[in-house]
């Protein structure tokens, strides 16, 4: 809380000059809905800002948790991110989507904070991820030799009549998925949240994270598989 208050105070001390850009043309990186949202924001529409926060806050927290030690610190980093978004809104030129811009600010701040905190010791999040090695599914689940080498030895059991809504209707299943996501190294978590939760275009994620599209999809699949494994374990455990 204190650091949030400090951040807020710092923001007051460095209040940006009001430099109102006239928003006339659609910015190239924006969707139509983002273009309208930007216009509303620049007209001081607080409801628009509330919408923006409601839409992205959860994903920002989840990504931040990949870089910092705990939820409280993640909340501080995200709060600081929103403050910067407010202050820099006039200078946003729309070369990328609005949410990509916001996530870029967040990742920069989260990395800085993670380094400064030096308390980010969770093995899973410090785990360096090698894109080239390690298959998504444990090779032991496949037949290793013989006529059917490479085919399932221990196949997945069908999740009968499962929809996302039904799956997440169970608190245990939801907790299981959230825990699996929180245990992902940041290299996998970032792409999962940005691609599957936020729907950010792969080209923008690649630019943001400085990775190739091949890397992106390797990481994305690894992340999805780890979450799938967690759900599989939960369902087979009958919890």
């Amino acid at each position, binding site marked *: 809380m204190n650091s949030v208050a400090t951040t807020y105070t710092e923001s007051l001390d460095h209040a940006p000059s009001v430099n109102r850009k006239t928003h006339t043309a659609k910015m190239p990186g924006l969707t139509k809905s983002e273009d309208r949202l930007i216009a509303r924001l*620049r007209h001081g529409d607080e409801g628009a*800002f*509330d919408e923006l926060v409601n839409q992205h806050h959860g994903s920002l*927290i989840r990504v931040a948790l990949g870089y910092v030690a705990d939820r409280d610190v993640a909340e501080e980093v995200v709060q600081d991110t929103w403050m910067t978004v407010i*202050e820099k809104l006039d200078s946003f030129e729309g070369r990328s989507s609005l949410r990509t811009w916001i996530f870029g600010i967040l990742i920069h701040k989260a990395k800085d904070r993670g380094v400064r905190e030096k308390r980010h010791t969770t093995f899973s999040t410090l785990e360096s991820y090698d894109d080239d090695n390690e298959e998504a599914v444990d090779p032991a689940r496949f037949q290793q030799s013989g006529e059917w080498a490479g085919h399932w030895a221990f196949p997945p059991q069908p*999740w009968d009549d499962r929809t996302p809504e039904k799956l997440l209707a169970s608190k245990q299943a939801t907790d299981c998925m959230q825990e699996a996501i929180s245990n992902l190294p940041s290299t996998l978590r970032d792409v999962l949240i940005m691609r599957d939760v936020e729907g950010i275009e792969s080209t923008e994620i690649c630019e943001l994270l400085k990775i190739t599209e091949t890397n992106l*999809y390797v990481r994305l699949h690894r992340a999805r598989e780890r979450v799938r494994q967690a759900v599989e374990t939960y369902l087979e455990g009958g919890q």
Partner: protein
Amino acid sequence: MKDHPSQWIVSGLTCRSITELTSDYLDERLPIVRKVRVTLHLATCADCRAYVEQIALVQDAMAYLPKLLPSPINRLRLSQHFARCQTPLQ
């Protein structure tokens, strides 16, 4: 086609290969020939169909994660800062 290991040879892909290709398949990133081979394999392999369905379900479930929102005090601070910085255009 029946689900039978003897049919897998038609696609030329093992189940192990299919698991590595699943996200690319679901996200429409495979070249057409490979996509056809994956489809052929899935047509004859219930286990891989289950796997692909589960990955798709995980992908879709991401959108249904519980919303996380700022605390009331943080939201108030944001609103105040926004009001201060975003003077409506005249």
